């Protein structure tokens, strides 16, 4: 005969209480039993991105930011932030503050939570983001770190119950780390293992912290491992005048697919936009390689392909800027074009320079307007 699971009713009751305590821990901890949010960022493993650098930018730096690029790897790798900073400094006649806060995996929920922390500590003149929509309908893999039920339960209001359950579960998973954070300070893993050379062996880039947050990957999509990376920017026929800022006069150069994001993603995108507007921050949506984003859409088109008309979708004043794919790579051979990427939709260091030089004048114009 199998022995009973519990030797007494009292033991069973204690086990039930323990289960109840674990499941309710995010509610019971509330706001009072959570460490400062700074601790969250020190706890995020490096595989998610340069979160120790992001932590320093949010909580330790305090200068106003002129232009901020925020978002996941497509944007993290697309912008040569030091170049843009140099150009803006020339324009302003003072050292400009330009920063990229970028990470792995997409999702508007990430934009919202990180922007919320940043805007509570620093003033930002203009935020540039891109279409972060994730179609697999799950929260960002790092959401369990930056979503804490005690801080942000209200952010879940109105979301589908399935998504709410995932966030809540993430809160439970991270509760032991949060409680430990009350007792001692988290040490970022790059300090625990300083010999960890993930920038060279994993990201194939200089440390983002040394490049104002940008990721400059020195590999080429499809090239065999070990292929030396040669820095060069191909010259096509595209020019800065091909970059287009949306206005009633230029509306014919855009095509809006009306291929809506999942509603809960849009909900976070709206929260993100509202946050920016409440802080008096200008918002710019930068169109990134749309021809690869919509497999059913026209591939090589003279129109700038957008999923949404963002000012309507976000119910906010959002500028949109982009360049049609037919013009972007015009005059380049297939191998020159492919040499700009380290993976689908992601520019490598050469692609980053190619693209940044092209869009910088329009971004600076939007900043000054």
């Amino acid at each position, binding site marked *: 005969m199998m022995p009973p699971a519990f030797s007494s*009713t009292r033991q*069973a009751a204690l086990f039930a209480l323990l289960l109840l305590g674990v*499941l309710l821990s995010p509610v019971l901890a509330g706001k009072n039993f959570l460490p400062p949010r700074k601790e969250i960022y020190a706890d995020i493993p490096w595989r998610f991105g340069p979160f120790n650098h992001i932590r320093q930018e949010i909580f330790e730096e305090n200068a106003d930011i002129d232009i901020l690029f925020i978002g996941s*790897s497509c944007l993290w790798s697309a912008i040569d932030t030091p170049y843009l900073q140099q150009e803006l400094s020339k324009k302003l006649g003072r050292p400009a503050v330009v920063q990229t806060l970028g990470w*792995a995996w997409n999702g508007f929920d990430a934009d919202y939570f990180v922007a919320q922390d940043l805007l509570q500590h620093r003033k930002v003149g203009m935020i540039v983001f891109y279409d972060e929509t994730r179609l697999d309908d799950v929260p960002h893999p790092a959401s369990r770190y930056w979503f804490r039920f005690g801080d942000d339960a209200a952010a879940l209001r109105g979301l589908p119950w399935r998504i709410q359950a995932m966030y*809540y*579960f993430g809160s439970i*998973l991270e509760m032991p780390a949060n409680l430990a954070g009350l007792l001692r300070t988290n040490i970022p893993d790059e300090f625990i293992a300083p010999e960890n050379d993930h920038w060279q062996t*994993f990201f194939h880039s200089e440390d983002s912290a040394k490049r104002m947050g940008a990721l400059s990957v020195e590999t080429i999509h499809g090239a065999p491992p070990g292929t030396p990376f040669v820095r060069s920017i191909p010259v096509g026929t595209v020019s800065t005048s091909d970059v287009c800022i949306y206005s009633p006069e230029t509306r014919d150069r855009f095509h809006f697919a009306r291929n809506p994001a999942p509603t809960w993603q849009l909900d976070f995108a709206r929260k993100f936009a509202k946050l920016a507007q409440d802080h008096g921050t200008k918002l710019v949506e930068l169109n990134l390689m749309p021809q690869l984003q919509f497999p059913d859409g026209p591939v090589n088109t003279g129109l700038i392909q957008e999923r949404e008309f963002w000012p309507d979708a976000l119910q906010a004043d959002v500028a949109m800027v982009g360049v049609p794919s037919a013009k972007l790579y015009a005059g380049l051979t297939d191998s020159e074009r492919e040499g700009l990427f380290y993976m689908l939709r992601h520019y490598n260091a050469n692609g980053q320079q190619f693209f940044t030089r092209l869009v910088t004048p329009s971004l600076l114009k939007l900043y000054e307007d």
Partner: protein
Amino acid sequence: MKTRPTGEHLIYGLIVVLSLIALALLALAPADLVAMAPVYKGF
């Protein structure tokens, strides 16, 4: 036959319900959310 008191039934019922809730949350959660450090396959 000895019958269990109602309190004991309630406790065991609660354990079953809470365990099912915990399992449901685990089943719903995507693997990347549960993993300590999921590998980003892009690099």
